[in-house]
């Protein structure tokens, strides 16, 4: 009798016998993870794929957790306060200037749309973050309705995206989300930024 004789009856499902003759359950872990039998190898492969997909599931939950943390942090930061961003007579109608609100943020764009009306938005296009600039509709584009030509709008020159200057909503091109709007207050001769409109930032 050889010293490596099988100690248990051979499992008919196991087509190969390990060199030491012991059952698969008694084999080292590496031999269980890399079986010789094709059907067993297929089983182990699918089981490992399930484990990997569950790891992906953990990563998705971690991602959701990060979004929750970020939203809680933004909520905890509270109101941003009031910051003077321009003098009323500093801009002609249809002209714009950039500012930071709050200080250190990405650039915002302030546009004078009338004698005493101003609007301000985040300057980064909601498509691929290129800066938007004020422009007149129809400039160089023959496909704009005659009634709309000359109307002030915000233009993203990178991919020809257009936004309504009054609402910040996308009107043409690839952008699908509106520009985050900065709320303003005009007091005397000064324009103040007072906050970021809920649901747009």
């Amino acid at each position: 009798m050889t010293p490596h004789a099988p100690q248990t009856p051979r499992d008919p499902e196991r087509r190969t016998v390990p060199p030491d003759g012991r059952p698969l359950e008694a084999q080292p872990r590496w031999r269980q993870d890399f079986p010789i039998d094709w059907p067993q190898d297929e089983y182990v492969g699918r089981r490992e794929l399930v484990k990997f997909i569950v790891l992906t599931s953990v990563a998705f939950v971690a991602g959701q957790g990060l979004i929750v943390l970020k939203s809680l942090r933004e909520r905890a930061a509270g109101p941003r306060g009031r910051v003077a961003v321009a003098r009323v007579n500093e801009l002609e109608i249809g002209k714009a200037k950039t500012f930071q609100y709050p200080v250190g943020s990405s650039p915002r764009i302030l546009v004078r749309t009338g004698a005493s009306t101003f609007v301000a938005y985040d300057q980064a296009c909601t498509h691929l973050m290129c800066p938007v600039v004020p422009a007149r509709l129809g400039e160089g584009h023959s496909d704009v309705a005659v009634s709309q030509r000359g109307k002030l709008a915000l233009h993203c020159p990178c991919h020809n995206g257009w936004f309504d200057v009054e609402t910040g909503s996308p009107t043409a091109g690839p952008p699908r989300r509106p520009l985050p709007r900065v709320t303003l207050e005009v007091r005397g001769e000064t324009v103040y930024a007072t906050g970021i409109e809920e649901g747009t930032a």
Partner: protein
Amino acid sequence: MSTSPAPRPAEPRAVPPHTAAGRMQPEHARFSRAQRMTVVTAILALVMLIVILQLWLLTATMNAFLGGHSAVAVPAFLASAACLGLNGGLLWYLYRLDR
């Protein structure tokens, strides 16, 4: 004179897995490899479906958050955690199959 053969010892009867003795059997002894393969394939399909649902949840939440609607973040997180719980349960069952 003929002698009657000695009575053969009774063959041990197979114990069905649902009996009291059968409950002690490990899962892998209750199922053949072909059956376990079917189970693991079914679990794989379920886990993939749940993960695709989680992917959709994450992209929808991210889109809403970037649009300034952060109210959906917590319910989406809870739903995703519930999906992970389901996936964890299925994986635990798969581990039990091999024990």
